[in-house]
């Protein structure tokens, strides 16, 4: 193949290739501008070549771009820019205006030295459209956030699950051990829940659990942690709350639950709950003991006839 033919093939490739290629001299004058750059900027080579790139694109980050190019001239080495740090250099449209969710084409840029002998004569800049990559990465990040959230939530009621509740209890207990203060835990249990399931079916039972969880959640303070411990058993972590105050909360929960029957699938289901409370006090070896004590109080409430709240004596 002769020299002329090779030359023109390279030119054709540069014209057709699906990424931006342009060349700058040391004064930031454009020496070459390919078809991708023309199509996306709307400015043809005739208009851009021979002038400073900032004449045609005054919105470019002037200091940053000049320094990038200058560093390539001085070091004779490459420079890069990634969409992850700098989403785009040029404000180009992308081909996902509907589904993309990003404002402009996300771009990876490479700045390459063009050398004759040892001397850098110009800098070639390539622009890759990485919009799809960026959209996929964002979707992945969103999915991870959702997964993390689901991992902490109870599927039926939407409140914290036992794993998350215990993790928070462990943290709060450690804080209490270090700094002192007050820390109470309530455990409560819907009375005769098995009878509700047996009489009205599991769908109604599930609705009862959901409605009760929602009612209690609405009645709590923002800093309280409310979780489903399993079955019809729920737990409440009350930081900075002495036992006496916790038992006021316990009564509030109990009345919130028993005051209004739950309407589900056309039936009215009266529900009551028993509540047990315990508070951290010096000498407690761990948060598990605190849970055990609240559970003992709950058992005592059940034995005394249910629909009541009992503090650990």
């Amino acid at each position: 193949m002769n020299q002329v033919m090779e030359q023109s093939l390279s030119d054709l490739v540069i014209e057709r290739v699906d990424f931006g290629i342009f060349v700058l001299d040391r004064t930031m004058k454009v020496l070459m501008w390919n078809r991708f750059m023309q199509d996306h900027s709307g400015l043809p080579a005739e208009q851009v070549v021979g002038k400073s790139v900032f004449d045609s694109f005054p919105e470019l980050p002037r200091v940053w771009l000049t320094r990038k190019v200058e560093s390539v001239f001085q070091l004779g080495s490459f420079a890069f820019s990634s969409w992850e740090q700098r989403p785009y250099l040029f404000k180009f449209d992308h081909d996902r205006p509907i589904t993309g969710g990003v404002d402009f084409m996300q771009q990876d840029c490479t700045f390459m030295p063009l050398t004759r002998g040892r001397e850098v004569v110009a800098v070639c800049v390539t622009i890759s459209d990485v919009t799809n990559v960026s959209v996929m990465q964002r979707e992945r990040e969103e999915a991870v956030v959702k997964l993390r959230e689901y991992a902490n939530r109870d599927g039926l009621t939407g409140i914290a699950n036992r794993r998350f509740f215990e993790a928070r209890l462990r943290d709060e207990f450690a804080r209490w051990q270090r700094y002192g203060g007050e820390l109470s835990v309530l455990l409560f249990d819907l009375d005769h829940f098995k009878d509700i399931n047996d009489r009205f079916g599991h769908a109604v039972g599930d609705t009862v659990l959901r409605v009760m969880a929602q009612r209690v959640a609405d009645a709590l303070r923002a800093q309280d942690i409310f979780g489903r411990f399993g079955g019809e058993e729920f737990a409440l972590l009350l930081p900075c709350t002495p036992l006496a105050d916790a038992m006021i909360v316990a009564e509030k929960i109990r009345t919130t639950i028993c005051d209004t029957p739950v309407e589900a699938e056309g039936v009215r289901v009266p529900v009551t709950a028993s509540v047990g409370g315990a508070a951290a006090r010096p000498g407690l070896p761990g948060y598990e003991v605190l849970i055990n004590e609240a559970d003992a109080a709950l058992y005592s409430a059940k034995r005394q006839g249910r629909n009541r709240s009992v503090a650990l004596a």
Partner: protein
Amino acid sequence: MRETVLTEDQRDALQEIANLAMGQAATRLATLLDTFIELSVPRVRVVRVEDAARTLRDMTGIDEHVIAVRQGFRSDIKGEALVICRSSGVGNLCALVNDPYVHSAYESVSQTELMFDVANVLTGACVSCIMNQLDRTPIFSAPGLLGEKLALEDVFHADVLAWRTALLLEVNFSLEDKTFRAHLVMLMAEESIRRMNEALNAILSSL
């Protein structure tokens, strides 16, 4: 092991080339960054894959977690370059570029972008100069973060690596007050070592 990979002459030649290259790189960096960055005399080691992390630990004296930025370079001799410093030293790494522009509110630069830029400049200067001495013009890939809090062992995944032996070239950078050091490590696997040998032989025979 060592003798089979590089002869003593080749090793001396490589050391000499690396010394020359670092001189050039330091000059170029000083012009670009307006700060004098001291480059150490480069150290060349041939390492087996299972010893790589330990060797790197010995050379750098780092026991803590590191931040590592990697870049590929290629000509017929190809490899990877890593810029490594203690995780606690990222701020110092960025401060190698003593640049008021970084603090400009108008065109702000994130710490990550700055870190990539600094790593890229150090890698570009040193690797280009060494490769130029070997009469090669390297092409670089974009810098990527290996991790912000890595153990040196995690830099090399010995169980999955395709190479058995690598040539490891270490240079460290410090500012004049020597309060902070960053390390550049060039790693080349067997095939590239062979080509490096050929390039070194060509230089030796031309003397």
